[in-house]
C-alpha cells in the first residue's frame, strides 16, 4: 500500500466516523513521549531533579492514556444505550399519535441517534476524565509510585522564599541554668572531689 492510499484510507475512516477519543489519545501519547524528553534535555538543571520530573510526567501520561481510553469507550457505550432508549420512546410516541414510519426510516433514525449519542457522551466523558478523574488519580497514584521507585524530589521546593509566610518563632519556657556549687571553693582542688 502506497503512502497516498494509506492516508486516503485514514481520511475516509475519519470522515465517516470521527470520535473525540482519537485526538485526545494522540495528544496524550505524544505528551508521554515528548514532555519527559524535553525535561531531560533542559540544560543547567540538577540531573536527579530532571530524572524525577521526567519520570513524574511520564507516569502522569501513563495514567492519563488508559483513563481517557476507558472513559471514552464507556461514555460512548452509555451514550449509545441512552440514545437508543430515547429513540424507541420517541418512535412509540409517534406511532401512538397515528404517524406511519417505515422500517427503513426507523433504522436510519436509530443509526443517526446512536452516532450522535456515542459522540456526545464520549466527549462529555473525556472532558470529565480530563478535568476530574485524571487529576484525582494522579494525586492518588503518582506519589506512591514515585516513593516505591525510591525517587525523591531533589529540586528546591519552589522559588517563593520572599513571599513565603514564615512560622512564628516558638517561645520556649526557659529555666535558669543550674550552676554547680562548690562547697570548698576557697580550699582548692582535692583528690576525690569532696
Amino acid at each position, binding site marked *: 500500500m502506497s503512502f497516498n492510499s494509506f492516508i486516503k484510507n485514514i481520511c475516509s475512516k*475519519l470522515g465517516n466516523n470521527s470520535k473525540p477519543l482519537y*485526538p485526545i489519545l494522540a495528544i496524550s501519547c505524544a505528551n508521554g*513521549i515528548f514532555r519527559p524528553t524535553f525535561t531531560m534535555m533542559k540544560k543547567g538543571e540538577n540531573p536527579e531533579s530532571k530524572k524525577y520530573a521526567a519520570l513524574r510526567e511520564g507516569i502522569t501520561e501513563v495514567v492519563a492514556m488508559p483513563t481517557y481510553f476507558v472513559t471514552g469507550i464507556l461514555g460512548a457505550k452509555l451514550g449509545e444505550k441512552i440514545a437508543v432508549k*430515547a*429513540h424507541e420512546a420517541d418512535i412509540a410516541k409517534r406511532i401512538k399519535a397515528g404517524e406511519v414510519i417505515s422500517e427503513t426510516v426507523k433504522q436510519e433514525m436509530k443509526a443517526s441517534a446512536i452516532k450522535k449519542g456515542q*459522540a456526545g457522551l*464520549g466527549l462529555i466523558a473525556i472532558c470529565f476524565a480530563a478535568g476530574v478523574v485524571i487529576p484525582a488519580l494522579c494525586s492518588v497514584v503518582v506519589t506512591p509510585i514515585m516513593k516505591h521507585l525510591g525517587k525523591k524530589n531533589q529540586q528546591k521546593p519552589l522559588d517563593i522564599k520572599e513571599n513565603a509566610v514564615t512560622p512564628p518563632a516558638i517561645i520556649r519556657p526557659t529555666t535558669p541554668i543550674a550552676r554547680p556549687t562548690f562547697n570548698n571553693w576557697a580550699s582548692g582542688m582535692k583528690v576525690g572531689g569532696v
Partner: protein
Amino acid sequence: MISAISRVITNPTVVNIAQNADATVTCKTTVNAIGRPGFILIDNHIDKETKKFASVKEFLYQATCLAVYMAVIVPIFKKGGFKLAKEKIYKNTQGFEHFKNFKEYSAYKKIADLATKKERLSALNSSKTKFSDVLTKELKKDKPNHFGDIKGAVELSNITGSVVGLAIIAPQVSQALIHPAMRLIGLEKPEKVEIKDEHEAKQEEKDDDD
C-alpha cells in the same frame, strides 16, 4: 428523564464539537485549565503559598497552550492540510475539485450540517460565500453530500496539528512566557535584579575597603 439526557448528549452543538478534533481539543484544554489548578488548590498536603504558586503556574501553562493552539496551530494546519490533501494526495478528486480553498469548504460544511432543508435554504440565501452551481444544487437537496474524504483530510490535519501544537510547540512557548508572567504577578523572584544587587553590594564593599 432518559429523553432529557438524550436531548443534551445528542444536541447538535455537542455532537459538532465531538466530531471536530480542534473543538474537542479546545474543550479538553479548557477543562484542564480549570480542573488542574482546582485540584492543586484543594490538595491538603501542600502549604498555602506553594498551592497558590503551583495553581497559577498550571493555569498559565494551560492557558498559554490553548492560546497558542487556537491562534497559530489550528489555522495553519487546517488550511495547510486542506491544500496538501487537495493538491498532493487527492489531486483534485473526491470532491476537492469543487472547493477553491478551506474557507469555501468550511462555509459549505456549516450549511450542510444544518438539520433541516428549510434551515439550509435560508442559510444559503444569507451566506456571503458564493458557491458554484454544483455546490448550490447539493445544498438544496434533502440530504446534501458531506464530502467525507475532505472532512477526513481536515480531521487528520487537525489531529496532526493538535499533536505538534500541544505536545511540542505550545509547551516551549508557554515555558518562555510563564516566568515573566509569574514575575509580573509577583509570584516569582526576579533573578536578574537579585544578581545585579549582589554584584553592586560587592562593589560597594570593595569601595568601602578602599
